[in-house]
């Protein structure tokens, strides 16, 4: 198995209790930031990426890419599937396809993951500036 490679995964977004607690403290809170700027990766995929828990990764889809902190998934196995909690970081890359029913595709999205140990996870203001420019 070749380490440090970029490979295809299926991206899921969803709720975690940490994100739920963080959002009630406020979107500008440190708890919220820590809870939504992570990407849960299966231990097998971690090895394939050649990284340890806590290393930053770049997750890319047709809609963009974002840097997140990879964490070893506590509840595997789910090789080939990554999980990012709901938040502005996840929504930077989710699919806008509503299939004519109004609902964007927020789970089961084709994505790519690669190690990005030298890249920093952007803070909320930096991410908003990068995404929306004017403010």
């Amino acid at each position, binding site marked *: 198995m070749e380490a440090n490679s970029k490979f295809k995964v*299926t991206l*899921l*977004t*969803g*709720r*975690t*209790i940490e994100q*739920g*607690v*963080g959002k*009630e*403290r*406020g*979107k*500008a*809170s440190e708890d919220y930031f820590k809870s939504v700027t992570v990407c849960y990766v299966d231990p097998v995929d971690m090895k394939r990426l050649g990284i340890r828990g806590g290393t930053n990764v770049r997750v890319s889809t047709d*809609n*963009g890419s974002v840097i997140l902190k990879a964490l070893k*998934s506590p*509840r*595997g*196995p*789910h090789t080939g*599937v990554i*999980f990012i909690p*709901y*938040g*502005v970081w996840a*929504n*930077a*890359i*989710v*699919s*806008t396809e*509503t*299939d*004519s*029913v*109004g*609902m*964007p*595709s*927020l*789970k*089961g999205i084709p994505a790519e993951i690669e190690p990005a140990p030298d890249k920093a996870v952007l803070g*909320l*203001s930096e991410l*908003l500036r990068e*995404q*929306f420019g*004017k*403010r």
Partner: protein
Amino acid sequence: MPIVRAVTCPVCGSLCDDIELTIKNKRIVKVKNGCSMCESKFLGYSGHRLLKPLIRKSGTLVEVPFKEALVKAAEVLAEADYPLLYGWSSTSCEATRVGIELAEEIGGVIDNTSTVCHGPSVLGIQDVGIPSCTLGQIRHRADLVIYWGSNPWSAHPRHIERYTTLSEGKFERSEWRSYVTRTKAATTKKKVESALRQVSPKKKISVSSTPVERGPCPAILKAGRKLIVIDVRKTRTAEIADYFIQVEPNKDYELLQAFRALIRDQEIETDKVAGVPVEYLEEVSDAMIGCNFGVIFFGLGLTMSKGKLRNVDAALHLARDLNARTKFVIMPMRGHFNVSGADTVFLWQTGYPYAVDFSLGYPRYNPGETSAIDVLLRKESDAALVIASDPVSNFPRKAAEHLVNSPLIAIDPHMNTTSQMADIVFPSAFVGIEVSGTAYRMDHVPLPLKKVVEPPRGVLSDEEILRRLLLEVRKVKKRKQLRTEVK
């Protein structure tokens, strides 16, 4: 210190109404009976608070008097051709009622957060119908509980304890004891494995495996209440389940249809469906048919993945089919505390539960066209009012982009992501903490939200802000009409 009892928690759709709050010096200092999200809200709501109205001037949000923000917001809304009014699921039914009046007045499109959560479920229910009941009936009678694409342990933390397998019903007993026994056994197993690893580090020690890997689980045949979880990954809820089925992402529809075939005694001519061996599905379908009162709670795992409303259609059909064999009900796990209330108020006021367009002077409903995401992706709206929601954070980036690039008004107690990007911001009081109101639980039971502390000085409720905005919009429109008549 005064204690306020029977407070309804304004966090998730479970609307737990047994919260006890201790008040000291007009502040909440202690929360009893709540989950971690409930505690976090009641104890931390005053942080990152908005206290003054803001208007963006030269790129920066600056504090302004309420009247100035009100007039500016009314002008923006009155002059827009196709404004979007979005949010509503974390405020009271009373506020939503005024919001719909405002949408009609300005000929806008009004949508609530169902559009990005259970919108497809609403469409499925309109197609198929829904055999359902109240959560009280489930607590007392359900002996088989299935969570499909839903993780209540994280999203509705007290749902299992209050309404399903860990609740003590009149006719069904709580499964706490069996849960504690299993947890202790699992902990012991982990300790033994850890000790063995230390003794012989090179030897591979088997770790706990999912039920899918080890085959049909005897727990599914046990007496008493059974909990089955079907999801694409092993969640915290799956860990406490009697049986867990791990479905491959985007294949829920196949699995649902396989269950429909099995409960009608049809044979499936393949070894696996959606990555799950058919023999395991047979075990579960036997449990479904064999129960006295079954319930399927489904979450966003069905509505947000491939198939969307068709997944929900299949789940509703499955529940309908099961009623030919036994008693079965089904219910969506609604997320925001009053998203059911928003749907209900929309429905009784306009005839439609979400994505309602007033641009032709009468309500029209066509999700996919009149839904918030589609309106934004087509860049059709020319202004937006967001209340009690954070779409800049929760919408896909391209949809949020148009929201941010048009005049944006936000009404929220917090400085959230949308407030940060807005042009006009109104601070509001917390519904269910600083103002009273009505909210609908996920089973459509309306519950009162209590006022337990005073809001900060000068901060109004969502309902009051909307009422004043509506009056101001009417004034602006009247002035505009007079100017036209003079010309």
